[in-house]
């Protein structure tokens, strides 16, 4: 992209490779020299204490922030700067730490917006809401209804999402991301603020998405139990640096992780 491509061996199995990414705002370094990869079909967890740069990492992956250094290779295509809409078109979808739904719109409409990139009928037909526009609308409505069935949210179809409880909002947000039929799904704390039952439901959905649709998932999560159960591999960040990378078992045993993360979480529990 930027002219001087460095020859880097990219593992064919990996869908996404982050290489030496650094990000800074003014003098503050949010990420420094982070590298990891995500393989096709796996569930990859990104963990770390608060302020470790996890969300910044996701923001870099889907083009909302531009890394100051390093590169990101997605689907064999390497780039440094990319517009969020281009990332979306390339097949990256995500959910947000603080639910970012369209609050004034119904559940149905929210998930329908996820189909935006796949709708192409002309403006003229949109004006008339006939012919191709109506046919397209119906076809996508069918897909969206399948997602609604899958997530078991039929009863809230017509309700403006602003009025829904938090747990359901998170589910609708997942639905909107699924409607994009992404290759890579980024989930930013999908279970924050949920009770046990809701967490179990959400875990089930995440596993189903991964197994049935074969969607690759990268997820940030604080609940260590969930992370250990769900993920195939884990990358651990601290102060913007990668301190460990491997299977949940490996990471769990890593001394730096225990010191930095689990120790910290322990203190947090007592507070």
């Amino acid at each position, binding site marked *: 992209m930027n002219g001087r491509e460095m020859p880097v061996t990219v593992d064919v199995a990996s869908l996404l490779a982050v290489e030496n990414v650094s990000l800074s705002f003014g003098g503050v370094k949010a990420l420094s020299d982070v590298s990891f990869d995500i393989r096709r079909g796996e569930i990859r967890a990104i963990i770390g204490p608060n302020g470790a740069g996890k969300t910044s990492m996701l923001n870099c992956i889907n083009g909302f922030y531009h890394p100051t250094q390093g590169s990101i290779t997605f689907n064999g295509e390497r780039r440094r700067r990319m517009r969020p*809409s281009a990332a979306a078109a390339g097949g990256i979808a*995500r959910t*947000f730490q603080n639910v970012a739904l369209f*609050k*004034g719109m119904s559940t149905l409409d929210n998930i329908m*917006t996820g189909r*935006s990139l796949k709708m192409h009928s002309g403006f003229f037909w949109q004006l008339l809401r006939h012919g191709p*526009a*109506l046919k397209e609308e119906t076809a996508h409505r069918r897909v969206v209804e399948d997602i609604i069935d899958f997530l078991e949210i039929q009863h809230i179809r017509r309700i403006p999402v602003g009025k829904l409880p938090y747990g359901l909002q998170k589910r609708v947000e997942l639905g909107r991301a699924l409607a994009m039929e992404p290759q890579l799904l980024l989930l930013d704390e999908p279970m924050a603020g949920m009770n046990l039952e809701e967490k179990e439901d959400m875990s089930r959905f995440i596993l189903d998405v991964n197994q049935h649709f074969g969607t690759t998932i990268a997820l940030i999560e604080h609940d260590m139990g969930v992370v250990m159960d769900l993920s195939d591999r884990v990358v651990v960040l601290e102060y913007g640096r990668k301190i460990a990378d491997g299977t949940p078992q490996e990471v769990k045993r890593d001394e730096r992780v225990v010191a930095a993360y689990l120790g910290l979480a322990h203190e947090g529990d007592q507070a």
Partner: protein
Amino acid sequence: MFYREAGQFKTSYTADMAIFPLREDRIGLAVIIVCAYALALTGNSFLLQAVMIPFLIFSLAAIGLNLLTGYTGLLSLGTGAFMGVGAYACYKLTTLFPGLNIVLCILASGFFAAAIGVVFGLPSLRIKGFYLAVATLAAQFFLQWCFIRVPWLVNYNVSGAIEAPLRTLFGIPIVGATATPETRYLVVLTMVIGLTWVASNLVHGRVGRAWMAVRDMDIAAELIGIRLLRTKLLAFAVSSYFCGVAGALLVFLWYGGAEYDVFNINQSFFILFMVIIGGLGSLIGSFMGAALIFIMPIVLGMVVPAVLNPFGLGVSAATIEHLRFMIVGALIIFFLIVEPHGLARLWQIGKQKLRVWPFPY
């Protein structure tokens, strides 16, 4: 009792996606439209000329602004100027091509307003809220200045005003001094119904969802692949088109002539107030808001003197106008506090009550 969805089953997504899925709503709408056309037969010229024609035209302008402010969340104070662009464009078109059908001229004049709207909408990519409002004020003042200072726009009339020439449709005069209120009313009604239908199609489809997504959370919209600049500019274009057509109708089918001051900043504000009181993000609300803001001073003009005159207190037209400003201002604050979704929400609540009537819940 008579307003129930019970027993109406949808067997296809197309039927479920209809804009009025309830049979009762469709019947109600049909009745309203038939009544609206029947009004022309009553022959009450005052009602048509002084109430219905301007009410419909302002409704159209309010729909235009609502598409921008209510649906896309972009605040505009330049509505009056965009209406002016439509009016002046229509004047130029019909005087340059006198043979061209006037209805086509009016519909085409909207495109000029749309183009200007897009130009002044360009800053909306980087700014929102209050900043955008100031940016659209630039449109308001600059365009109004153009209406005064560019004599070409008024065909070098010394008076600086534009006047609707005589134009016919199927041999019947619809524009100009000899057009009767009835024919003008029918033309306005038909155009407003047609354009409202188009607006409703837009907001219920892909385009409308993109607009609302940008309004509710622009960053998230961008991250699911909605292109912000394109979506916002489309909103400016469509909105200004509606306002432009409304402006052309205002001059050609209501006033019969106009000068620059018709399209001043107060006009912009009153259209905005119609949208706020009617309900941001509601087409039916635009009609309700227009009715309230436009018809209220007429009612005031009748009621206030009737109440005060027996006490020997004379009321001047100016006083009525001042009262109108006060009441409109107070209503805006009242609605923002009590029901920010405007009359449209009250209408919805009413319908809900009717649905379960005679039970409270």
